[in-house]
């Protein structure tokens, strides 16, 4: 590769295969090697990501698009080192932080304590976090609910809180997996501004979204995943146009 650009993330032929018992019981995640398959219970393999490779360079912010179930989230989890690729590997200049929709961090604790804990898990000291609780609360727009247990939060409130915790730090590589889709308009604007700020501060942002508008506004490169394959990789306008055409065609 005769390029002088500096790579930040290299994804090398990544496969993710889940082994699942029909009925929903997952067998030890994506890394099971020897699974006994009895005749009665047949193990199903779900090949979520089928050999994806790409290289991301400094200063790129990358949109990830594709239909539901195309392997976007599975790939992002591998990128963040939360799950292991069944085959292949991911290399990165520093550990990416993944922000996804999902459960509350500690459902029985107040939003404020979740801020403290989340920050400390990311490596901040208690002092640092105590000093920044207010700023994070403001950013999340949760002044009125911050003393309530996180289990009482709506999906949107919970996603806002988690984004605010993660965005408090400047990340070299930040992966946002549809987490912002549930936020309201005002919060979307605030978070988008923060993402662009991070990108301009030489950080790399991955944005998984179904909103082509927010992808166009934040990203300068787009990857299109379809059924576990990397279908297309290029500048946002071209890839999004092709994706939209594909969606329209398959609707007819």
């Amino acid at each position, binding site marked *: *590769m005769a390029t002088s650009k*500096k*790579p*930040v*993330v*290299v994804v*090398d*032929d990544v496969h993710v295969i889940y082994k699942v018992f029909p009925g929903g019981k*997952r067998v*030890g*995640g*994506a*890394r099971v090697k020897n699974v006994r398959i009895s005749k009665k219970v047949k193990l199903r393999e779900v090949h979520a990501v089928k050999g994806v*490779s790409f290289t991301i360079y400094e200063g790129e912010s990358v949109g990830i698009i594709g239909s539901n179930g195309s392997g976007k989230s599975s790939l992002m*989890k*591998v*990128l*963040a*080192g*939360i*799950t*292991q*690729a069944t085959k292949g*590997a*991911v*290399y*990165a*200049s*520093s*550990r*990416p*932080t*993944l*922000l*996804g929709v*999902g*459960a*509350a*961090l*500690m*459902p*029985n*604790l107040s939003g404020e*304590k979740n801020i*403290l*804990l*989340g920050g*400390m*898990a*990311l*490596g901040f*000291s*208690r002092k640092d976090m105590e000093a920044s609780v207010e700023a994070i609360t403001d950013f999340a727009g949760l002044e009125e609910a911050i003393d309530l*247990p996180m289990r009482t939060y709506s999906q949107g409130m919970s996603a806002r809180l*988690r984004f605010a915790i993660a965005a408090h730090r400047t990340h070299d590589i930040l992966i946002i997996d549809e987490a912002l889709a549930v936020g309201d308009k005002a919060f979307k604007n605030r978070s988008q501004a923060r993402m662009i700020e991070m990108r301009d501060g030489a950080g790399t942002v991955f944005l998984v979204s179904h909103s082509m508008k927010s992808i166009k506004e934040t990203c300068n490169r787009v990857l299109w995943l379809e059924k576990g394959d990397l279908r297309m990789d290029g500048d946002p306008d071209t890839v999004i146009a092709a994706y939209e055409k594909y969606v329209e065609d398959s609707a007819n």
Partner: protein
Amino acid sequence: MAQYAEANGLKRMGARPALLDYLKETFKRRDFAFAISAYTNEAANARTALGKWWLILLPTIQAATYGLIFGLILGDSRPQNFLPFLFTGVFLFSFFSGSFSSGASSITSNGGLVRSLSFPRMLLPIAAVARQFLNLLPQLGVLAVLLLVLQQTISISWLAVLPILILALLFASGLAMIAARLTVQVRDLSKLIPFVTRIVFYISGIFFSIERVLESVPALAPFIYLNPIYDFIELTRGALVVGHQMTGTLWLACSIWATVTFVTGVIFFWIAEERYGNE
């Protein structure tokens, strides 16, 4: 690809960090472990009227119940200094059994944290043990009051409790880490934990004098003396309860158990680090 990535200073993601780096990362985030254990306690007692007082009340009521029942059943054959004997046993035992069971569920019950944030997972079993330890401290206060009332003396040997607690912490942390990994990989084990705990409770001589049982069945002696829970409880009694001795053998047994369990636990847990997020 791999060479290209490494030539540009990129590191493989999800790969388990070297043990030393891993422990450094864990140590750096110790605030998190302490905070999580303190908060979990608060949340657990938040809806009760007596709140924090339950931390003292519950184990005291528990020990008193055992005292009442076994004290009556055993009659004259109950050990000397029965209440200090019993309370020391019950409090220490609940520290170990609590560390074991909450350590076992520390990864599986914190799914929200494990799936959303990446941090050294070892912090979770450590936090579980820290929480049990924070609960043990006020119980030791109750024990001190009890000893003052019943034995009417303060002894210099009470100070030996400090090194014993350090050893007990090491042992419990090792136990919690081993249990945490095992439960993640074989969920079914979590069903057996209550039984294991019960069995250990009965063979550790908590409410009866095990020496007396051994008089009639001396062949059991090696098994009884190798039981680390018994060793720790007996050593603590040696420091606190009149009529019990801290023998060199007990010190040796506890030190070996603590070191071996802790080192084994750390390595055993660390080896599977990349797998905990897969759940």
